[in-house]
């Protein structure tokens, strides 16, 4: 570019500049990193950002949802479905719309997933103070409702001058594409600034590719890890979500096979290896398989790869009785449990380890794995009697009907049940269990289906979670985004009821039967989903649990 061109400017509003810039941020393969923008407009974003989004058209498409939180759930599931290599933005107005997104921001924060929140904010000029929906701080003139985002995003910025975008936008992209810091970003965009014109450098809008780096291990850390592995007799690998984010699934499969090391799975790491992989011993921890927990308890070295070591993985720190090697791109995670750290990208680290280990092979007892898988088949078999089926029997029925589908869920009984019992094909599992947010499921299924149109999305949701948030079902119908919902209705919060009793309590305020209500509900979920245009059927208990010869039709819309 010539010196003259470098000085060229273009006059745009700040909102127009934001959407133009976002539309040219690319991935390695040329796709837009920010796929598009979910939007619900209010006075805090309709005039400035609304005009800009309309103007940019298909270069950065806009989609309308039903609820700000669940739109964000869809965006987060999209990013997770893409292994963090793509993301979506979500915009809302300055008050309840934006604070509705805070829960979703926390969800993305816990799960280390990228999403861009563009939250309308109060007037930077303060001229109309207090504007409608403005939260007034008596002792701090700089506070707005959007400050609620600060603890639950990886980067927060308030855009009070147009030119702030020159720094804020690249910082936002850097965070979302940084494998160690990856997470949600909030740009609180003052509504008057959105509409303000500025002379932008044209060079600012040149297309840019964001490469996601793969940090290699430090030589000393690698040497210490290799020495520990060589000295071990019975190592076990904990496979976390970082394996998938790294695209290290095949590297892990090769590593586990070559060195004969059992792999046990976290919620986020499940399906990096298919269940059929001979070294996949299944789920770890609280909702772990007998084979996996036995291997973990007997291990003399734990290789924790790409995992946060959440309490469900570690049995609240009672499952492992061995030193750990923390293989993680994020030092915060690598150092947990006093681990010997190996800070690196998972795929690069596995290759470096195997280069150093050569043909080293261990000799794990694989009989428990075979016994476990046989026991799962029996446990999930079709019920013989006429009583209501268990969640395990429902999982078995879906498993037999759609073995290559992606089972997804977030909260209630099903996450533990699926982690334990779903025999995933490679890539056949999507669980939001960092935040385990009730109401993620329907919207998440929509986002996942957008990311993975090649796979059948199987959305498991309980009646409690469905009642918390279901309205993006209507959006999915409107946008013709197909997925299959399996709604298990046990008339209440069955999982927490069992926990309540297990903790010495009495059944109280969880199942409808134990609640202070004047009449027991008779919620017609078929009619409810049907009213939004979804095709819904109620399965009689026995037939749904019989093996089927072919999958149920995916996400059927009313024709």
């Amino acid at each position: 570019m010539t010196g003259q061109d470098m000085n060229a400017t273009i006059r745009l509003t700040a909102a127009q500049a934001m959407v133009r810039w976002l539309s040219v941020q690319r991935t390695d393969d040329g796709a837009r990193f920010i796929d598009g923008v979910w939007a619900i407009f209010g006075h805090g974003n309709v005039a400035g950002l609304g005009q800009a989004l309309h103007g940019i058209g298909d270069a950065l498409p806009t989609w309308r949802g039903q609820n700000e939180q669940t739109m964000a759930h869809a965006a987060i599931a999209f990013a997770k479905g893409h292994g963090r290599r793509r993301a979506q933005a979500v915009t809302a107005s300055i008050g309840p719309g934006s604070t509705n997104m805070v829960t979703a921001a926390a969800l993305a924060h816990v799960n280390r997933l990228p999403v861009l929140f563009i939250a309308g904010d109060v007037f930077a000029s303060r001229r109309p103070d207090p504007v409608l929906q403005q939260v007034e701080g008596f002792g701090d003139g700089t506070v707005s409702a959007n400050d609620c985002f600060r603890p639950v995003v990886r980067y927060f910025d308030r855009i009070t001058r147009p030119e702030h975008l020159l720094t804020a936008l690249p910082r936002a992209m850097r965070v979302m594409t940084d494998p160690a810091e990856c997470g949600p970003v909030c740009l609180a965009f003052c509504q008057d600034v959105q509409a303000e014109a500025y002379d932008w450098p044209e060079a600012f809008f040149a297309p840019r590719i964001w490469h996601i780096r793969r940090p290699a291990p430090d030589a000393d850390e690698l040497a210490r890890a290799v020495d520990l592995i060589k000295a071990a007799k019975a190592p076990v690998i904990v496979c976390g979500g970082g394996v998938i984010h790294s695209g290290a699934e095949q590297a892990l499969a090769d590593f586990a096979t070559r060195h004969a090391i059992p792999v046990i799975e976290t919620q986020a790491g499940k399906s990096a290896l298919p269940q059929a992989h001979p070294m996949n011993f299944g789920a770890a921890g609280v909702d772990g398989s007998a084979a996996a927990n036995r291997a973990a308890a007997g291990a003399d070295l734990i290789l924790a790869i790409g995992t946060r070591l959440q309490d469900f993985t570690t049995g609240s720190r009672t499952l492992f009785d061995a030193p750990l090697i923390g293989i993680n791109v994020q030092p915060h995670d690598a150092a947990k449990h006093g681990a010997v750290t190996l800070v690196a990208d998972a795929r690069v680290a596995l290759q470096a380890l195997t280069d150093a280990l050569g043909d080293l092979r261990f000799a794990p007892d694989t009989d428990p794995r075979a016994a476990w898988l046989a026991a799962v088949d029996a446990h999930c078999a079709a019920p013989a009697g006429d009583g209501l089926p268990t969640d395990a029997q429902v999982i078995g029925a879906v498993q037999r009907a759609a073995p290559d589908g992606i089972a997804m869920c977030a909260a209630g009984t099903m996450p533990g049940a699926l982690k334990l019992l779903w025999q995933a094909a490679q890539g056949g599992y999507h669980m939001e269990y960092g935040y385990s947010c009730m109401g993620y499921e329907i919207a998440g299924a929509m986002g996942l289906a957008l990311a993975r149109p090649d796979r059948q999305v199987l959305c498991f949701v309980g009646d409690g979670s469905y009642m918390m948030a279901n309205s993006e079902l209507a959006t999915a119908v409107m946008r013709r985004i197909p997925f299959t919902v399996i709604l298990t209705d046990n008339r209440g919060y069955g999982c927490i009821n069992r926990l309540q009793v297990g903790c010495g309590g009495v059944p109280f305020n969880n199942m409808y039967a134990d609640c202070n209500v004047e009449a027991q509900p008779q919620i017609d979920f078929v009619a409810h989903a049907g009213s939004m245009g979804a095709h819904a059927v109620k399965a009689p208990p026995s037939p749904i649990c019989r093996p089927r010869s072919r999958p149920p039709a995916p996400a059927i819309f009313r024709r």
Partner: protein
Amino acid sequence: MIVIETTAAVGPGFGDAGHWWDVAVPATGDTDALAQAYAHYLTMAARQSLIN
């Protein structure tokens, strides 16, 4: 969407599957069930590795 009525009485675990989860149990209360749960809680909590 397929709606299926299920039983809430039975959790997904069976056999040797699963492991303890640290959910704080009240130290005092009115029932034997609570006292037993609290005793179990103390036993398991004592096994936690708190090294970081």
